[in-house]
Structures are given as structure tokens and as C-alpha cells.
């Protein structure tokens, strides 16, 4: 068999964790090969080894049957291996063209020869149907186009092995469809693609074969066409997974959160980013705010939770005006907040897991006496949450949070915020970057809170999550709520149209 890349018997350990345990992966020429696994299954570690970011403890890498050594990303590039990272590595105040050629500029006597580069870039973009504007600034273009820039970057370097690290996480449904087509075209042209994901639908759509990892161990490599979604998820998690969130009809109660004519100005300019928005969230329902990233969701949430000032309008919690209350006041009157950015807001990475789990409650009686922290109680409480929410880490409660995997960091935040048993839970992308097992768990927790007659305000960019979990969908576009929908009677395509501003409900305020 014609393998372009083979990783054989790869083993890599980090302190306390065996990230890759004797894993083998064989990539055929011209195939799309998915790499599937939960968070912490070792996908990123394996790809980082292939890209030269880590050195394996054991095992060899072969290209076209010959053993090679990859000790840094430049080596990887020389062997034709390119990678689109989950978070793009682009310089925002450079143009598309400048970003593409950066690092491999053709020069004459120290001066850039942009014309040749431009021609090559334009040719590539035509050949693979990767529409881009070479002269646009990165900061001005959409996430989808930024991703195309990253892809052209790899092609410009004549890479033939392309690694995509969770490429669909940031995209709209239309953009995802486009990306799938691009990937198929690339494979047709003879490029070999490694596609890291934990979304089974996408694997079913584009991948030829799929390698499944579980907790650092190799499980199997399967032909996608012969394997069902259910089978894949079972292999990945090690147990059966329910895809659709099972829930009864919502029994709504009183209005818990009421937002009236809320306007929030942008930090950088006088322009409002949230424009005269009004809505209610009742006890016992999950209301989901859907929209494409950057349409005012973050600012709306910041205003509700108190991280940013309200320009105009009012916010009420259980009938009490909390527009101007402090964050601590809001938190104590029954609001929990799973923040969008876990590193910026959610955690203090230099603190231990235990200290982070009491970040919202360290000052309460259970955890302090006369201003002294009760470390015994804190550790006991942390261990309770760690067990209950299955938060995995190297050294338990005293693990430095920075050293934990992203998924487990997220679980820690979710555990902390849900355990407060809040009247209103504001959850912003609570499952971002998590695997199906963890997503299932968090969705169940959200529904459980709902069934305990709590109000949930969910902000999500994932359409599937929006459709699955919510009882009501609000669509936000350019700072305005353009639709108030019932998830049972709306199609994904329609929702996409509302989100992109192509359609709007007149009755919605």
C-alpha cells in the first residue's frame, strides 16, 4: 500500500500523563483521514509530534517508506507537512498576501518581489476554488476567509500533507459546507489530509478512513463508509452516547431574566454593538442566543453579567432591577456565568484546581473563618466536584490549572458555576472545544438545571447545540435580535439565513 506518512508505535508521556501510548497512524496518498478522539485522547499531541513541536519518546515516522526525523516545524515544512491550527496564526494588520508569503518571501537584493508571489497565490486560489482578496487586511475579513488564507499558506509552501486541527469550530454552516468541498478538491488533486475533529457528521461527510484514539491509546482505523456514527462514538468514548438531548416539554414559570431596551456601546468607538435589545428568560426554559461570532453576543453577555457597563436600558433578575449592581451582587442574587473565554475570565491559571473551583465562593462561610481560608474544606469541596464532574488532572485538587487540558479546564468552570445552583445560568459556548462525551454531559446538566425550574440563557455558535438543547431560539444579527424561533418548527437552513442577516422576522423586537 502506498502510504505517504506513517507514524509507527508513537509513545509520548508528560508528567503524570501518558499522552500517546504506542499509537500508529498510516496516511494514504490522496485520502482524507480523520483523527477522532475525546479531549485528552492524544490527538493534538500526535499531530504536534508530526509537525515537529514535540519529540516522541518512542516510535518512528516514515515518509514514502523512508524513516525521517522531524525536530521542528521547519523540518515538517521541508517534508511537505503543513498545518492549519485551530486558532489561526495570522498577523492581523498584514494583508492576505503578506501573510501567505511570510517566512518564505522571494526577494531580490533584499527587496520583496511581491508580483511573482501574487501570481502564484492567485493561481492557487483559482485552482482550488479558494476565493480570497490578496490585498485585504486580515482584520477586515471573515473567519472563513482567514481559514482559506491558512490553507493557501500551506499550498504556497508546496505542502502535500495537510493537517487540519478542528477546522470547523469557528465556522458558520455555509462556511463548513464550503470547507468540505475544498477538502474534497484538495484530496482529488493528490494532497493527503489529516483531519482532527470530534464532530461525527463531518467525518461521515468527507473522510475516507478514520483512526480512533481513546485516552492515549490506539483503538482502530476504520473505513468511514462502512461504519455508523453510533459505532464511532462508542469506540471514541468507550460507551454508548445519546446524540439528541432527551428532554420533556419545558414547563415554564415566572420570568427570571428580563432585558429591556438594552443598548451597549463598543469599547473602542461610540457605536452601539447591542442595539435596543429586549427579551425574557423564564424559569424552566433554555433560551439560546444564536448568531455568528461578533454580532454583539459577547457585549450583551458582559452587560448582563456586569463585566461591562450598560449604556441604556434595564436588566431585571426575578423582578429586581440589577442594571447597576456589582458583579458580586449579581452572583449572590442567583446568577451564574460560564464565560466565553476560559483563560481570560474563567480561570486563574497560576492557581491550583481547588483554588479555581472556589473562585466564586472563597469568601463564603464554608471556606473561611475570620478571613483565613479553610484549605481542608476547600480541598474537600474540590474533590467532591472533581469526582462528580469527572475533572481529570495530573495531581487532583492541587494540580496547577495551567497544566490541565482545555476540556478539563472547561469542565472545572462548568462544575463551579452549576454547583452554585443558580436561578439564572448564563452559559456562553459551554461546550467549546469539548468532545462528545463531555458535551453530552454538559447538555444533560443544562437540561437538569432547567428541569429544576431554573432559567438558562445559552449563547452558542454551534447550530447543533442550538437546535438540540434550546426551548426557544433568539437570533442576533449586528446587535439586534432578528428572530424569536421555536427549534421544533425551524430548519437549520432557515436558522443559517437568519444568522447571516438574509432573513428577519418582522414581529421580533
Amino acid at each position, binding site marked *: 500500500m502506498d502510504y505517504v506518512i506513517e507514524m509507527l508505535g508513537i509513545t509520548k508521556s508528560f508528567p503524570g500523563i501518558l499522552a500517546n501510548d504506542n499509537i500508529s497512524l498510516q496516511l494514504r496518498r490522496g485520502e482524507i483521514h480523520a483523527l477522532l478522539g475525546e479531549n485528552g485522547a492524544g490527538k493534538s499531541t500526535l499531530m504536534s509530534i508530526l509537525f515537529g513541536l514535540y519529540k516522541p519518546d518512542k516510535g518512528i515516522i516514515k515518509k514514502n517508506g523512508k524513516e525521517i526525523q522531524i525536530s521542528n516545524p521547519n523540518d515538517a515544512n521541508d517534508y511537505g507537512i503543513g498545518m492549519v491550527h485551530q486558532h489561526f496564526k495570522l498577523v492581523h494588520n498584514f494583508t492576505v498576501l503578506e501573510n501567505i508569503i511570510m517566512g518564505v518571501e522571494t526577494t531580490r537584493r533584499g527587496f520583496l518581489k511581491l508580483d511573482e508571489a501574487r501570481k502564484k497565490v492567485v493561481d492557487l486560489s483559482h485552482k482550488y476554488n479558494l476565493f480570497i482578496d490578496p490585498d485585504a487586511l486580515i482584520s477586515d475579513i471573515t473567519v472563513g476567509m482567514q481559514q482559506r488564507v491558512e490553507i493557501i499558506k500551506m499550498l504556497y509552501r508546496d505542502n502535500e500533507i495537510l493537517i487540519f486541527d478542528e477546522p470547523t469550530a469557528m465556522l458558520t454552516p455555509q462556511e463548513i459546507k464550503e470547507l468540505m468541498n475544498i477538502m474534497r478538491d484538495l484530496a482529488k488533486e493528490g494532497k493527503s489530509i489529516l483531519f482532527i475533529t470530534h464532530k461525527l457528521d463531518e467525518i461521515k461527510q468527507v473522510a475516507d478512513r478514520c483512526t480512533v484514539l481513546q485516552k492515549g491509546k490506539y483503538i482502530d482505523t476504520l473505513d468511514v463508509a462502512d461504519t455508523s456514527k453510533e459505532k464511532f462514538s462508542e469506540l471514541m468514548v468507550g460507551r454508548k452516547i445519546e446524540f439528541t438531548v432527551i428532554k420533556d416539554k419545558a414547563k415554564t414559570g415566572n420570568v427570571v431574566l428580563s432585558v429591556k431596551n438594552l443598548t451597549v456601546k463598543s469599547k473602542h468607538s461610540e457605536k452601539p454593538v447591542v442595539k435596543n435589545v429586549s427579551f425574557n428568560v423564564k424559569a424552566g426554559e433554555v433560551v439560546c442566543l444564536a448568531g455568528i461570532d461578533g454580532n454583539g453576543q459577547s457585549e450583551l453577555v458582559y452587560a448582563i453579567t456586569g463585566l461591562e457597563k450598560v449604556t441604556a436600558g434595564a436588566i431585571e433578575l426575578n423582578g429586581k432591577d440589577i442594571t447597576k449592581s456589582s458583579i458580586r451582587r449579581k452572583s449572590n442574587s442567583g446568577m451564574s456565568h460560564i464565560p466565553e473565554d476560559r483563560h*481570560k475570565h474563567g480561570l*486563574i491559571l497560576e492557581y491550583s484546581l481547588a483554588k479555581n473551583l472556589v473562585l466564586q465562593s472563597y469568601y463564603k462561610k464554608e471556606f473561611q473563618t475570620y478571613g483565613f481560608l479553610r484549605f481542608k474544606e476547600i480541598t474537600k469541596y474540590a474533590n467532591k466536584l472533581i469526582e462528580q464532574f469527572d475533572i481529570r488532572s495530573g495531581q487532583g485538587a492541587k494540580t496547577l490549572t495551567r497544566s490541565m487540558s482545555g476540556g478539563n479546564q472547561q469542565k472545572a468552570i462548568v462544575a463551579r458555576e452549576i454547583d452554585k445552583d443558580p436561578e439564572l445560568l448564563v452559559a456562553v459556548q459551554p461546550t467549546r472545544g469539548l468532545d462528545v462525551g463531555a458535551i453530552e454531559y454538559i447538555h444533560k446538566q443544562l437540561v437538569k438545571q432547567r428541569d429544576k425550574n431554573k432559567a438558562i440563557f445559552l449563547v452558542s455558535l454551534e447550530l447543533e447545540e442550538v437546535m438540540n438543547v434550546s426551548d426557544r431560539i433568539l437570533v442576533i444579527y449586528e446587535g439586534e435580535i432578528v428572530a424569536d424561533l421555536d427549534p421544533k418548527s425551524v430548519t437549520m437552513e432557515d436558522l443559517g439565513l437568519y444568522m447571516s442577516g438574509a432573513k428577519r422576522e418582522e414581529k421580533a423586537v
Partner: protein
Amino acid sequence: MNRLKKWVNSPRFSDVVASVGAIIVGLIFGLVILLITNAQQAFPAFFTILKGGFSGGAKGIGEVLYMATPLILTGLSVGFAFKTGLFNIGASGQLIVGGFVAILVGVKGEALGSYQWIVAFLGAMAAGAVWAAVPGILKAVFNVHEVISSIMMNYIGMYLVNMLVVEMVYDKLKNQSLIIKETAELPTWGLDKITQGSGLNAGFLIAILFVIITYIILNKTVFGYELIACGHNPEASKYAGIKAKRNIVLAMVIAGALAGAAGALMYLASTGKHIRVVDVLANEGFMGIPIALLGLSNPIGVFFAAIFIAYITIGGFYMQLFDFVPEIIDIMIASIIYFSAFALIAKNLIAYILKRQKKKEKDKPIEEVKEAKK
């Protein structure tokens, strides 16, 4: 043995090794300078530095600890602010206004009787706290960078104290502050006798007390939890409902009080130190910065760093015996600080070496390696 292994693998170990490494490299650098300036005397001089304060026997030890006393406190002052994410470069000004208030009470407060030194001491802390509160409030309310404002406060403090000394407690003949009353002097509690007539007094014990207090505040209290949280991640602290502004002001106030206390302990010693009316910022204040760096802002680390700096500074006084200028010690201290600023690099290097050693164990099954780590 297992405990030792655990400690060796902890991040604290590489911290300590990094600081000690910086000291060794700094000393070697000093030796090179000695060799360049006067090769013949270099080695005897170098050993004198290493012997440092201890060449004077018990008295020498006493002198080292006496000299370290204000350094411990200014080191704590800077280190405490560092932990909160603030750079208190104004310890010098806080120290001098504290010192002035201590002298003022010490000269004029006879009526206080045996409480005089205590009042003088507390007054000095209050003065230092007020001095540091100004940059703290400017930072919290107007977002003025504390480095700029506390440098300004250093100069304002120095000139103001010069002026006030001349107006209120001036010894014209010597161009310095007046001698404080005996009841204002720090008690010695026999420490001078134990150390055979050194200047050591209760101040050293007070400094130890403050080391313990700051350690407890930072590591054991809700307040310390909030302060360090603000230092590491102000955004997340805000999200957790911590009042960052209040904490910035409080952290500066405490840092200032510590520096003010340093001033009191300097000028209330029975050895008769005076504020000289000259336009020079108090060096003890600035030494707080390298000491906090060398001690990695940890109160206990600061304690040992201060003693070490005092130790080699006293060693430096003997340099003249070998035809060297005592400033050679300043160069050594400076290079130690330089290298301790590279501590991060050293830390990574140590971590790398430890990892390499661990790799040798890699052929063992992983469970065994895990066991060994415990």
C-alpha cells in the same frame, strides 16, 4: 528520601536552584573583576567576601543581621506589591518619610515615656502607608502607572523630609537630624550582648515577625487569595467579583507600611543613625527591588536574600584591606541581580535536565515511573 524526591520534582526546587545559581554566577563574575583589577590580591579578597560578615565572629553575625533588618522589610514591601502585580519602586520614599516620622516622635515625644518607640514605629508605618497610598489611588482611579507616580513620590519624599528636618529636628553643626531620646530607641533585649556589642536590636525580631505576617496574609487569607488573583489575572478577578481597585490601593498601603517600618527600624536603632540633609534617595529602599527578585517575592525567600546581601556587603567593607574599593561589592550584587533576572532561563534549563534524567527511566513500565514520582 521520598520527601526529598518530591521536593526535587516540585517547581519550588527549581526556583531555589535558580536563585542560588544566580548568586554563584554573580560571585564568579565578581572574582573575574577582582582578577582583572588586581590579580595578586584577587583570591584572598574573594575569600574575604565569601567569609563576609562572619569574619568578625559573633559580633560580625550581629552586624550582618542588623544591616539586614531594613533590607528584609523593603524587600517584603517590593515583593508584596509584586505578588499583586504592582511594581513598588517607591520603597525609598516610603522609607524616608517613615524614618522622618520616627525621628520626629523620637525627638519630641518624650511625654510618651516607654511607649515612645512603639508610637514612633507605628507612626512611621502610617507615614509610609500614606506615601504609597498616593500612587495606589492614582493607579486604581486614574490608571496612572505606579512606577511613574512612585518614582515621583520618592523625590517628593526626599526633598520634603530634608525641608522638614531643617525646620523641626535639625542639628546645624552636623547637617543632620537630632539625636532621638533614649526611650525612643529600639530595645535590644540583650541581642547586642549575645552578639558581643554589635548594633543588633529588637528590630530584627520585628522584621522576622513581619516576614511571618506577610507570609500568612499572602498564603492563608481570603485577602491574600484576592490580591494574588488580581496579580495573576485582573480580568478573571473582575469576573469573580473581586474589587480590583480596592485591592490595588490596599496592596500599596501595606507595601508602604512595610517600607515605612524599615525606616523606623533604621533610625530608631541605638547605634545613632541620622537623616543627613543631602539630596540622595535612600539606598535601602532601592535594595528592596533586587532582594524581592532574588527572593522570588516569597517572604521567606526575601528574608534569606536580605541576609545574604547584608552578608556580602559587610564582606565588601574589608575590601580596602586588599587595595580594592568597596564598590566592587556593588558590582557583584548588581551582577547577581542580573543573573537572577535570568532565573527563568535557568529554571527552564533545570527543568530540561530533570526531564532528561527522567527519560532514562523511560524503559520502565509507566506505572513504575508514576510510583517513583510519588
